[in-house]
């Protein structure tokens, strides 16, 4: 044990993070050696992001200790984390488009005296770092002329030249094309040759086998294993470690699915989606399952007319709406992915939120029937069990679950017969989750069609009758839900595995 600690650049010991009612990271202990590519894998909600947030100083652990480069490590900000030796490459890029590559690299590190910059070896040093990892980028070029992949490499160079010897990369390939991914991998390998340790987080298991030296698997906040990837026997074993036996199968067939096709989508194409076709029947709960960035939200937004697309959507035998306004008029409603920024008017009350999607229902000649609005809001508060002292409460003061119920109420008020629910239970506590599932089932039992877009497998397998698996903008496979669903196969498909790999 003592020998292992000597060569390790990063070790965490008994790291724990509690949220009210949830233990997001539970007593995690592992260490990472110098100059390796160390992968961090786990399902959504396994605790990876929380762990990374503690490493970067964005969150303080509830208990446990971290050691970096042999020193105790207690960062309280990304700045302190970098000084301690850990830099992070986030999914959103943090480069300044208007400056040159060189100016971006030295940004915030310039030495100055009396407000004037002082010439130092900084510029030479960063130019050298950049040349080491990617000679093709001209330091004098303006960043706005670079591709997304090149901008990412500039950010990596900045991290490497800031003195950090550990770089965390969170889903760095999400926005890259195949060729760009290859180039990024070359850069990462060069970093490793230059004594930099990379902590690599990705849902794409192929990348992990191609690039990684060692891997840490997390599940439900717990540390499952840390081992060399050569000890792992292929995708199947890794997937098994990721899911364990924890996927809870609570699906019971509802048996009231109609035969009438409500919505038919043919050949949907957008920037991300590739030839997506499917149909939804009356009284059916459809699931779209895939990882972040697989194209679930894009499908939902296309059906709702919120984004433009090529292809054909037929709803009740007529063309679907091309704007949200048209879609709502035809009977489609969307619960958007981000409830606070897209779904809710947080500065307004419950009463003011509920009627917005179906104004004719509570107005006459453009004037509100105040009594009807109050009655409707009151009914939804009772029907959906929204915990509030009054309908006059501002929605920003409600808990996540109750906010989501208000968004749901808005959609139900529109009397749509197709509901699109994008991540309906994200950030919602367990109790409210169950209640929302019951609401969804009731809606379907009344003959409405419901489509659930989710990156939580348990959710999709818990309530959906049919599930479409998505990867990289494609509908890979359609499966009927039931007791014999092969979870390992599902995870294989949504992480980009080919059919023949499935066991």
């Amino acid at each position: 044990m003592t020998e292992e600690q000597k060569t390790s650049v990063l070790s965490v010991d008994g790291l724990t993070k509690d949220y009210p009612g949830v233990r997001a990271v539970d007593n995690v202990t592992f260490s990472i050696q110098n100059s390796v590519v160390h992968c961090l894998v786990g399902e959504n909600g396994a605790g990876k992001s929380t762990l990374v947030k503690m490493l970067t100083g964005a969150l303080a652990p509830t208990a446990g200790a971290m050691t970096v480069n042999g020193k105790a490590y207690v960062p309280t900000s990304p700045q302190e984390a970098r000084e301690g030796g850990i830099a992070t490459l986030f999914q959103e890029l943090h480069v300044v488009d208007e400056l040159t590559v060189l100016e971006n690299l030295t940004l915030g590190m310039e030495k100055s005296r009396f407000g004037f910059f002082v010439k130092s070896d900084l510029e030479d040093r960063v130019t050298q770092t950049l040349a080491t990892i990617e000679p093709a980028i001209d330091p004098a070029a303006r960043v706005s002329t670079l591709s997304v992949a090149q901008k990412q490499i500039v950010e990596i160079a900045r991290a490497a030249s800031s003195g950090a010897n550990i770089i965390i990369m969170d889903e760095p390939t999400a926005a890259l094309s195949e060729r760009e991914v290859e180039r990024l991998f070359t850069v990462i390998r060069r970093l490793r040759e230059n004594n930099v340790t990379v902590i690599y987080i990705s849902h794409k298991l192929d990348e992990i086998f191609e690039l990684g030296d060692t891997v840490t698997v997390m599940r439900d906040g717990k540390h499952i294993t840390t081992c060399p990837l050569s000890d792992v026997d292929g995708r199947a074993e890794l997937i098994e470690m990721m899911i364990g036996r924890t996927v809870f199968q609570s699906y019971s067939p509802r048996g009231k699915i109609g035969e009438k096709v409500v919505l038919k989508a043919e050949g949907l194409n957008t920037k991300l989606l590739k030839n997506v076709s499917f149909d939804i029947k009356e009284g059916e709960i459809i699931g779209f399952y895939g990882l972040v960035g697989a194209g679930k939200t894009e499908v939902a937004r296309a059906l709702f007319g919120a984004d433009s697309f090529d292809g054909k959507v037929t709803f009740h035998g007529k063309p679907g709406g091309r704007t949200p306004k048209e879609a709502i008029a035809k009977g489609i409603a969307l619960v958007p992915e981000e409830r606070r920024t897209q779904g809710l008017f947080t500065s307004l009350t419950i009463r003011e939120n509920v009627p917005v999607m179906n104004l004719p229902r509570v107005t006459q000649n453009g004037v509100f029937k105040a009594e009807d609005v109050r009655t409707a809001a009151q009914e939804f508060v009772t029907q959906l069990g929204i915990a509030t002292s009054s309908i006059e409460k501002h929605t920003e003061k409600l808990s996540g679950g109750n906010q989501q119920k208000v968004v749901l109420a808005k959609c139900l008020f529109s009397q749509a017969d197709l509901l699109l629910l994008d991540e309906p239970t994200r950030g919602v506590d367990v109790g409210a989750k169950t209640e929302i599932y019951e609401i969804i089932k009731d809606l379907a039992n009344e003959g409405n069609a419901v489509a659930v877009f989710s990156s939580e497998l348990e959710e999709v397998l818990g309530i959906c009758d049919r599930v479409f698996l998505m990867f990289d903008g494609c509908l890979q496979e359609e499966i009927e839900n039931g007791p014999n669903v092969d979870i390992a196969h599902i995870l294989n498909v949504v992480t980009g595995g080919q059919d023949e790999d499935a066991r």
Partner: protein
Amino acid sequence: MSSVTDTLPSGPTRSKMSDEGFISSLVAAVAISLFLIASLLVPNFFQWQNVVNLVTNNWAVIALGVGVSFLLVSGNFDLSVGGIVALSGVLSVWFAQSTEGANALSTGLGLPYGLAIACALLGSLAIGALNALFVVRFGIPSIIVTLGTMMVARGIAQVITHGSQRNTNLPDAFGYLGNLSLFGTSIKFPVVLMGLLLVVAIFVERKMVFGRITYWIGANPEAASLSGIDRARHITKLYLFSAGIAGVVGILLASEYKSGFSNRGLLMEFDALVIALLGGVAIAGGFGSVIGMFFGAIILAVVTSAATGLVLSPDWQFILKAVAVFLAIVTQTWALARRNK
């Protein structure tokens, strides 16, 4: 603006006032207190006629404030209203002036008065349409667009008046509307019109779909679109509405003075903005009320007229206005935060 902590139900008997109602009452209370304080300091200030004057002398700014407040609530600025006041006044004069004048400034198009003001109004709406076009279609920030159209409108007015004014060769009917007294009192037609506008605006804001849509857009533009609201269309209507009010104000002022003056309405766009902010309209949108704006105007009027009464040199007016604005806005922020604790 408000905290996220839960407020406990405050008992079944007390029904809680909305935040907007609270701020409006607060602004009204400040306006009344300021009036009483000024009455103690300034001799002869405490008179009914003086109260009436506070409103009637400011009818133009209050009317402009209605359009500006609606736009602010939707999250957009309108700085073009002062320019439109000048433009529509100048246009109405130019259109109505007879064709055989002695020189260029006394020669117009000779249209009948009714047609002249209709055309002047169309000119104002064109500026409003221009605002909407750039804000909605091209997505340019409204503060830049309306700063531009403010200069466009006043610029056209200056070209038409050669940088001065037109006041000759006008038909007799021209001075009628702006100087018409109603109900056998000294209250003039424009003031009555402003009163009507306020009543209608309050009704629209509180009870009508049009008003609520304005709040929804201001509170969360993206959620509004995803809830089926046609944002582009609504903002276009608001700009046309605001430009229309400014056009009517310009026509009435031109009629009152029987002249078209290119500097008329100078800085009025800022006064309209200031009274809206004083009245508790949130600069970020989604919050505010026309009643609040009205009392904001009264605060500004009390401060200015009390200063004149105290024989302060007019040079001090801007400083006084500034102090009033800062105090009022700090008080509101503080009171609202405290209330929502």
